């Protein structure tokens, strides 16, 4: 419906539309293969087309479509085609109020890689660092209204339908559950203790599931993965709606903004039934009496939730000598937490971060960001996955050589508490106005091993970077701009 309206509006345009199109294929090769189930070769190809029309009425229409192919070669070959509408909106003015209606990205806050206030658009986490950070925000349906009074601006956002983050749960090296974890768990479960009455049944179920997993083709696994990704999405009208507002003052030499809103957690929190969790921890099947309760509540064995939270924050930026200085501070009410017994808890949270850019020399650019987040009134011992205090450091240095034809770039993402890091090297060679080649690689470091079994996952002390500890790879990519 929206697309038809946008096309209809575009037909009224008096000037030809601006057209941008590109094709990019990136390959990652991980020859180390520390894990028998991980992929040794992955390709991610994306075709992007974007059209922008300025209508005689002054309205503006933007339509962007993405097609993606992802292939993973490891123990077996898995591949998937996907396409989606990215930005698709119309800009319309009512009096002095500017409206933007449709699929869009709203980027608030001043931090890029350690952002606290960038909470409106969900992110695409399916391909980890294989996908550039700027491609990870997902455009979602929004109504945006903006009014400016000179240097003061007021922005209001209404998101009618909740869209969760795109996460991979199974099957990829970037999945929430590391490769082989499910297979190993099922294999291990063949030897779990059972009581005499249910032993045969349990073994049959486990063997059946294990065989089904072995035989499941790529399409089935992709479908299952997407289904899990949508699980827990609120569907009732209003239940998944979100709203936010932002006041901005654009002063001489600085800018300052205050904002707040009511939004849902984009990433999925998975809550496990206590009986199921006990079985996984003890490596034993439920007893006959427990099994009844588990079967009765089979729908709740794993629950996928996106709890609502409220936030308020401020961001500012200015220049200091040759540096650009950026900062954010935020307070959250009701952030979702996963406890050690895999149940849901919530906590208030505060956080702050800053960024420093040295962009004055066109041949060398450097950026540093750091942020801190603190959960208020939470007992650290009850937390799974995260700590009460979280710190993140991001650093990036790049250079433009030979008249911008060669651009080396080094990125470091550091978790100083867990001594985890991700280092990304990329060297871009601009062959012509249309063609670019990139080579590089990424390296993860963590003192904790990537959890390879469910038991290890449930007691995992590492952080998000450590989960990908086995994903070191060399990368190469080709980009064509039409």
């Amino acid at each position, binding site marked *: 419906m929206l697309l038809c309206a946008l096309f209809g509006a575009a037909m009224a345009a008096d000037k030809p539309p*601006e057209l*941008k*199109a*590109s094709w990019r294929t990136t390959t990652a090769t991980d020859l180390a293969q520390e894990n028998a189930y991980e992929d040794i070769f992955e390709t991610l190809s994306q075709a992007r087309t974007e059209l922008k029309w300025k209508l005689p009425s002054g309205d*503006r229409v933007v339509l962007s479509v993405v097609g993606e192919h992802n292939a993973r070669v490891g123990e077996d070959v898995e591949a998937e085609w996907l396409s989606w509408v990215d930005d698709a909106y119309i*800009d319309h003015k009512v009096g002095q109020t*500017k409206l*933007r209606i449709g699929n869009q*990205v709203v*980027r608030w806050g*001043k931090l*890029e890689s350690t952002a606290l206030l960038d909470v409106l658009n969900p992110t695409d986490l399916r391909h980890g660092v294989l996908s*550039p950070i*700027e*491609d990870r*925000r997902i455009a979602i349906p929004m109504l945006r209204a*903006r009014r*400016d009074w000179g240097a003061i*601006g007021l922005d209001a956002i209404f998101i009618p339908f909740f869209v969760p983050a795109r996460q991979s749960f199974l099957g990829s090296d970037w999945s929430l559950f590391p490769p082989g974890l499910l297979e190993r768990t099922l294999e291990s479960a063949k030897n779990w203790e059972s009581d005499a009455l249910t032993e045969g049944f349990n073994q049959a179920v486990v063997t059946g599931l294990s065989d089904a997993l072995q035989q499941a083709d790529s399409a089935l696994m992709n479908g299952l993965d997407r289904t899990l990704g949508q699980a827990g999405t609120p569907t009732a009208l209003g239940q998944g709606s979100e709203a936010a507002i932002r006041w*901005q003052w*654009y002063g*001489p*030499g600085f*800018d300052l903004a205050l904002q707040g809103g009511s939004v849902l957690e984009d990433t999925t929190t998975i809550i496990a039934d206590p009986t199921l969790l006990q079985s996984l921890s003890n490596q034993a099947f439920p007893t006959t009496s427990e099994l009844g309760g588990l079967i009765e509540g089979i729908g709740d064995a794993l629950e996928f939730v996106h709890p609502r939270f409220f936030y308020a924050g401020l961001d500012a*930026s*200015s*220049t*200091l*000598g*040759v*540096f*650009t200085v950026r900062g954010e501070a935020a307070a959250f009410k009701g952030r979702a937490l996963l406890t050690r017994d895999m149940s849901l808890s919530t906590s208030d949270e505060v956080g702050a971060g800053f960024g420093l*850019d040295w*962009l*004055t*020399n*066109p*041949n060398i650019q450097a950026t540093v960001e750091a942020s801190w987040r603190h959960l208020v009134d939470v007992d650290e011992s009850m937390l799974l996955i995260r700590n009460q205090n979280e710190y993140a450091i991001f650093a990036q240095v790049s250079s*433009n050589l030979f*008249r*911008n*034809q060669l651009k080396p770039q080094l990125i470091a993402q550091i978790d100083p508490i867990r001594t985890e890091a991700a280092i990304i090297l990329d060297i871009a060679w*601009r062959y*012509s*106005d*249309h063609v*670019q080649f990139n080579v590089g690689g990424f390296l993860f470091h963590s003192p904790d091993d990537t959890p390879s079994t469910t038991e290890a996952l449930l007691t995992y002390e590492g952080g998000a970077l450590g989960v990908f500890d086995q994903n070191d790879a060399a990368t190469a990519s080709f*980009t064509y*701009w*039409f």
Partner: protein
Amino acid sequence: MRTLLLALLICANPVHAKDAKDIIDEARDAQRLSNSMQTVKMVLVSKSGREQTRTLDMRARRDGDVVRTYARFLEPSDVAGTQFVLVDNPNQVDEQLMYLPALGRVTRISGKGRSGSFMGSDFKYEDFEIESDPQARHALLSESESEWKIETTPGPSSSYTKIRTTIPKADKLPRKVEYFDKAGNLSRELTIEKVRVVNGIPAPTLTVMKNKRRGTSTRMEVLDIRVNVDANEIPEEVFTTSYMEENG
């Protein structure tokens, strides 16, 4: 960096000797722009002859001493939508803003100490500086029936030791500027190869900057130009973060 038109005048800007200053003042007055809109094609030519093309849409608005410049990349595709705003206010620190479509937000850039090549071209940011160098010394090298030649010795902050500018008497638009490096060698040479008179003002429509040391060059071609346009056509809103975000 005001407009490219103004920028070309700037090459001969740091001239303070009485005669030379009169010449420059006359040239500036004759070509003083209020508001302008232009589409510019910048072609970067490598030593081997390979070309990279960038097309920009530029607008400039003058309100008293405050000059605001807006630039938006139209080509190539990967940088299309990238925008810059510069607010040059003699009473305040210059404001520089950049919008990258990939990031989806406006970044403030410190203008202090900005140096080096302009967008990978053979132009340097200092070539676009408007303010005169108070420490520069100038001399009228020669005067013929048709032109003046002025030699400028810039202050220590410049990367040049000497700049020679040729200004024709007819329209006072500099046609050739030679830049000499610290060793005293001719490092770069700017020539205006085509001029079009727009609303009675001579405007350079094809400018070439040659890097004599590297053997590279940059052609700046004005595809479309309007000068002294009504201020309503370039509202102040164009130079705001809101406008940049809306047109990213």
